[in-house]
């Protein structure tokens, strides 16, 4: 049984926004990255999964059950939204205890532990916290009951780099303890570090699902060339070439396919310089997201 399963999930708001026919499975113990630019439908997907909005058609289940009909399934769930808002008048500790009361276990020790790691003052009023500190409350709040599934919606916004580091360590620890992590983001480098699989969403549709290792190891190369004379674009018109950028005597592109075939083409030029490197996800990503004309 998959921890998360989305089947033909569709949510329409009028005509413009929403998601259509999203299919996705996340297995136990995975760290799953969910990548897309702003407005692609990441939050809509997550909110449908949480039961905050109801789908137009299709289904979304956690541990095989829908959140709307089985709200108790959310016991196993920790959720961190991109923007956190809590009851302003409460103190941090009171809010966290209130949150813990829903899970019917005593989390005081765990709260203290997490607060210490995140460097969070439990005695302060929520009102007086900065955005980053509120975010920390959100993190503690999402992890205090040791959920089996952690849903993160753009979790790092508002955290300074050092805190991001701590945050990722925490998530990695939870994952080692057996928690499944679903991680939405538009920042690729952070996904790259953590995830075992990624799905790309664009304009409400999943356009690609791949294992991280497949994405990085084999398939894609970033090729940069410099030649003595101007490079003829026709020579690089080859299957597997994308994101081609030509500037007179230099060229760069992402390549996926037979390296021999590509190298044969390239030897036609009088090369002064060449580099073939692993692209980072950002570049692969761009290649998915360049608007088709």
């Amino acid at each position, binding site marked *: 049984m998959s921890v998360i399963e989305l089947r033909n999930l569709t949510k329409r708001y009028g005509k413009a926004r929403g998601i259509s026919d999203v299919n996705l499975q996340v297995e136990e113990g995975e760290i799953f990255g969910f990548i897309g630019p702003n407005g692609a439908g990441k939050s809509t997907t997550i909110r449908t999964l*949480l039961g*905050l909005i109801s789908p137009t058609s299709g289904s979304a289940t956690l541990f095989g059950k829908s959140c709307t009909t089985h709200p108790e399934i959310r016991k196993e769930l920790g959720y961190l939204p991109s923007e956190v808002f809590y009851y302003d008048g409460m103190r941090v500790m009171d809010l966290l205890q209130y949150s813990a009361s829903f899970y019917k276990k005593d989390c005081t020790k765990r709260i203290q532990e997490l607060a210490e790691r995140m460097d969070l003052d439990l005695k302060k009023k929520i009102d007086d916290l900065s955005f980053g500190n509120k975010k920390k409350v959100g993190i503690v709040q999402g992890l205090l009951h040791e959920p089996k599934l952690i849903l993160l919606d753009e979790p790092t916004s508002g955290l300074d780099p050092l805190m991001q580091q701590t945050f990722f360590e925490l998530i990695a620890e939870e994952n080692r303890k057996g928690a499944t992590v679903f991680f939405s983001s538009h920042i690729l480098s952070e996904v790259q570090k953590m995830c075992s699989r990624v799905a790309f969403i664009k304009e409400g549709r999943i356009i690609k699902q791949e294992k991280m290792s497949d994405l990085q190891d084999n398939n894609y190369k970033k090729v940069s060339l410099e030649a003595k004379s101007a490079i003829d674009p026709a020579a690089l018109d080859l299957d597997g070439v994308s994101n081609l950028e030509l500037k007179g005597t230099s060229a760069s592109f992402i390549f996926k396919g037979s390296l021999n075939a590509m190298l044969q083409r390239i030897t036609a030029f009088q090369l002064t310089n060449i580099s073939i490197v692993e692209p980072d996800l950002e570049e692969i990503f761009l290649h998915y997201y360049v608007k088709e004309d």
Partner: protein
Amino acid sequence: MIALAALYLSIYPSVASDAEDFKKLLGSYPESVRAMLGIDLDRIASILGLYSMVFSIIVLCGAIQAMNLGVSILTKESRERTADFLLVKPVSRAKIVSSKLVAAVLILIATNLVFYAAAFLIANGVKTEDFSAKLFMLIHLTLFFVQLMFLAIGMASSVFFAKLRSVLPLSLGVVFGLYLIGALLASGEDKELIRFISPFKYFEPSYVLAHAGYETPYLIAAAVIIGVAVALSYTVYLNKDVHAVS
């Protein structure tokens, strides 16, 4: 509300002593004005009669409180953007609505108890003749009934707003609207039918004083309004989409 009751009740002794003059003065008002203000000439000189006149204004305040509560309880989470926190907890939305509803009703009960106790003490302090404690309580209970209706109406109207920025305009608008309808129409033709439109006119103090009870059709209407509004709130809120904050 207590202050209002105290103010009106404190003028009672002077009203009682000059009962005849007072009646004459009020008698010079046109019939329709008297009906609008809820003045009943025959009873004005008794403490309960005077009190029931004040009471319509107290009920108005009570209705505003109840309507505010009703509109607030469910929209609070989206107005303060805490819906994302509460609604992903392992509790069903039905349970959330129930808890909030019970809390609101408890607040109303507490308000009524405090107000009743205070009004009773004041009335006892200023009385010049004995009055029926039972009637006093029956009149007071109408406050609670009207409040329950407005709580339910408030809740039912709030669930239709995707995002309600502030509560007061809606609740004041509805409450004053119904109050004015009640005040203006109660003096017109087809009185008995038109009274169904405004919850303020469901329980006329003068009827309560005369019969020591409530009018059954309006009691049923009140129960129906409460039932339908609460059921509507549940149905809509359970299926409502909760959108991301922006």
